[in-house]
């Protein structure tokens, strides 16, 4: 199975990851798995989601940087 992870840039801020998760839930997109790499002040979150195209569009609308 080919999966395309979304790569998302997030600042270290309490609740920031939850906000991104909420965004997906509200759009009915399931997060099947994720991993994070972090530096002192920011991190990169990789998400495996059920609808990567729609998720990317949502994140863009919120001006969250995602690849």
């Amino acid at each position, binding site marked *: 199975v080919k999966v395309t992870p979304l*790569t998302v840039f997030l600042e270290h801020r309490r609740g920031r990851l939850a906000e991104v998760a909420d965004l997906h839930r509200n759009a009915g997109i399931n997060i099947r798995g994720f991993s994070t790499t972090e530096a002192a002040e920011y991190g*990169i979150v990789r998400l495996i989601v059920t609808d990567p195209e729609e998720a990317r569009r949502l994140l863009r609308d919120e001006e969250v940087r995602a690849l």
Partner: protein
Amino acid sequence: VISAGDEHLVPDRAGGLLWQPAAEMLPTQELGALQMERLRAVLESARDNVPFYRKKLEEAGVSPADITCHGDVVHLPFTTKTDLRDHYPFGMFARPRDQIVRVHASSGTSSNPTTVGYTRQDIDTWGDLVARTLAAGGVKPGDLLHNAYGYGLFTGGLGLHFGAERLGCTVVPISGGNTERQLKIMRDFGATALSCTPSYAMHLADAARDRGLRPADLPIRVGFHGAEPWSNELRRQIEAGLGIDALDIYGLSEMGGPGVAFECLCKSGMHINEDHYLAEIIDPDTLRPLPEGEVGELVFTTLSREAQPLIRYRTRDLCSFTSEPCPCGRTSARMSKPIGRSDDMLVIRGVNVFPSQIEEVLMSIPEIEPHYEIVVDRKGYLDLIEVWVEVSEDVFAETMGDLERFQRKVQGQIYNVLNIQVAVKLKEAKAIQRSEGKAVRVVDRRQAL
């Protein structure tokens, strides 16, 4: 007329010493006459030797002979930092290069730095003015000055150094940095006087305390601290921490460096070396002179510098004057501590930084969006600059390594231009407040020291 060679240390009436008693206690009227005599010579030299001033004076329709009293000074044109940059490197020199024995330059700039040249005589005069500064704090031959000002193009290190040698005390040219070593040398050599920025003095005091050193373990009596604005509260802390008298000194590279004005042990305003600098306070908007006691922009005209006479140089520092007699016996007017700037210059660890310089670097990096913020803060007593940059789609990459490389690249480019370390912080899009128009995006979180 004051001539070189009148140096002999005599006590002032505040517990310090006078290095050039005749000049430092010159009756006000004679001082005024001396200033006018020197001013005319400066104007003539500027007109005859500096094309910039010849043009400026012609445009203003003023000839040196027209300036006969202090009130006439308002007819003279101003000089700005931009003028100096425009004539980089040696276009403001009034002497041929083979008579210039030293060149200093202002702290890092992205455009041209401002240079300052000295003849042999200028170096001697500068030494005398700094010797006056040190003597006012009671320093004399036999003392050991631990000089932690930076050496190099910056005027602080070499300025204090030559003044101390001229005065005849022992100088330790330790320069800045390496606090551990500074404390060891200070203690082992038995420093009795200290010169450094006020923030570094406080850093040294904290470091000494952390290592269990008490003020009594360090025989320092007096410190000379300038190049940054500082408060009387910080003075009390430095004095308690190191067990010294902490004195404020004022100078700027354009006027030759330290030695323009200094505190005596009364610690109530800085005595301006008025026999060498004609000082005015003007309204920075109307450019008209302000009455004594009012806060305005400090303007200097050099009265003795051969290599580089400057006429009505706008320092951008805001302060006030008093000509009330000082109990110490010096007859010169005193200036208050500068309380701010009439431009947006930041002083970071003694280095002058204009936000526009940081902006220029950021704008030269294509991936950076035009949204950024410069945050100035203080950790302990050391100033920190953070540059907040939004991560654009161009910057953002798959890996942390790419982001970290980008951070280092921006930090490196800023360091190359400004010679100061900044921390680049990557922020999410929209994290930085949008400002209307071309506001300067600087947040200064430092409390007055």
